[in-house]
């Protein structure tokens, strides 16, 4: 078991999410940076579907109630002794995640996985749909599962930390770029987009030159997935992340290539995002 001493600004339980439930209006959700969460599970010998903790801007403190093996990945917490490297956390010991110098989301995996009760087949918290366990609070006690496989025998995974300055990702066509004037993809690809404070697990609200609508009619809602760059009436795009809605009623002008959406999930307000065709 693991006791939450402090949850920090926002910590949720996340796994691979709930794919395949669009039929009842349930989106996928899951870790914002899937690659970092997957790495955390691999480093402690967990199944890829095991649940981890996703801490936003550090601040998370947890106390081990038994001898555990843990690892952090994603945004590197300040002052931590090890990152991307599994460590022992003895019974009674407390692990505190400092605020990362760069990146937004730190993943904490425990060998055996966080074993809270699944909801509709997943332990992920979907903040948009209001599904899954609530965000962690001080005093919460989290059960830990039984390890399913051997430790991989890796001391440290050599992966780069999320960048602190500008991030460039690949831009792909979306279904409704023709709803905007000119070549919307060119505008998306030339501007420097600033991540605003109105950003969360649902998406990044970007500031930059507004895109203008050519079609003014009402678009019937249609399906979308993470990576979608949706253009609401304000003209500045929203880049959808893990807790994206199942359908949206505004035109999607472009998409960020799916593997790059993980890196967008590490962007903080004020950082610059560039989209390259």
């Amino acid at each position, binding site marked *: 078991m693991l006791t939450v001493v402090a949850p920090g600004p926002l910590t949720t339980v996340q796994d691979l999410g709930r794919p395949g439930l669009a*039929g009842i*209006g349930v989106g996928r959700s899951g870790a914002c940076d899937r690659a970092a969460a997957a790495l955390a599970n691999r480093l402690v010998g967990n199944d890829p579907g095991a649940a981890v903790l996703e801490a936003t801007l550090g601040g998370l403190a947890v106390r081990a109630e038994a001898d555990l093996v843990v690892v952090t990945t994603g945004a590197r917490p300040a002052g931590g002794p090890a990152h991307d490297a599994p460590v022992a956390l003895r019974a009674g010991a407390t692990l505190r995640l400092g605020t990362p110098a760069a990146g937004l989301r730190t993943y904490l995996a425990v060998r055996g996985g966080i074993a809270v009760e699944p909801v509709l087949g997943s332990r992920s918290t979907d903040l948009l*749909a209001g599904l899954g366990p609530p965000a962690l609070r001080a005093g919460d006690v989290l059960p830990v599962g039984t390890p399913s496989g051997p430790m991989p025998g890796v001391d440290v995974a050599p992966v780069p930390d999320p960048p602190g300055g500008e991030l460039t990702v690949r831009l792909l066509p*979306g279904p409704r770029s023709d709803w905007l004037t000119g070549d919307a993809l060119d505008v998306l690809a030339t501007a420097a987009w600033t991540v605003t404070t109105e950003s969360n697990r649902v998406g990044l609200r970007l500031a930059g030159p507004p895109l203008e609508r050519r079609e003014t009619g009402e678009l019937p809602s*249609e399906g979308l*997935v993470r*990576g979608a760059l949706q253009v609401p009436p304000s003209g500045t795009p929203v880049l959808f992340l893990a807790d994206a809605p*199942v*359908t949206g009623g505004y035109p999607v002008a472009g998409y*960020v290539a799916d593997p790059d959406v993980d890196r967008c999930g590490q962007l903080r307000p004020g950082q610059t995002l560039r989209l390259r065709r």
Partner: protein
Amino acid sequence: MRVLPSGSTALLVELDDLDAVLALHAALEEDRPPGVVDLVPAARTVLVVTDPAVTTLAAVEAALRRVTPRPGHQGPGELLELPVVYDGEDLGDVADHLGVDPGEVVRRHSDTEWTVAFSGFAPGFGYLTPAAGAWDLPRRPSPRTRVPAGSVALAGGFTGVYPRESPGGWQLVGHTDVAVFDLARDPAALLRPGVRVRFVPC
């Protein structure tokens, strides 16, 4: 059928109308091309979500173009009766829009058999289409920030029931005390695609 790009993992298929959407969706549910992990039907489109580790978008597009749509294959699903108090704030506006009195709106809404065509907006929110009659109503000019759970509403040819309190732009005609989405129940969602619904005035 128009196949539109949707990034590196999905394709958006645009069709002429909802019947064509349901026919294609039924065919794809019956025989899913390999690597398709989710299907999101909507009013005029089907989003086909793939697993890039298993397939390519080109292979899925080729498979989509070979599919024979299956019209009329959505139902008939179970019949659900939902008790409704027709006390919605927009009942008068809806009546004006249809050029009838509020009692006639209630009669038409409750005399009609509705079928869940697809879901979206929130977990358990079904878009229901009428077996007969036209209900082409606009959304509210500005959405409400709070629509109570259980509200029965109309917009754009559909009726629906809000599963929980949320913002919303549909025209409110009444409310039901039945929880249409309840995680403690299996199935959690009452309004699943294919389920037929009668609204019973009470």
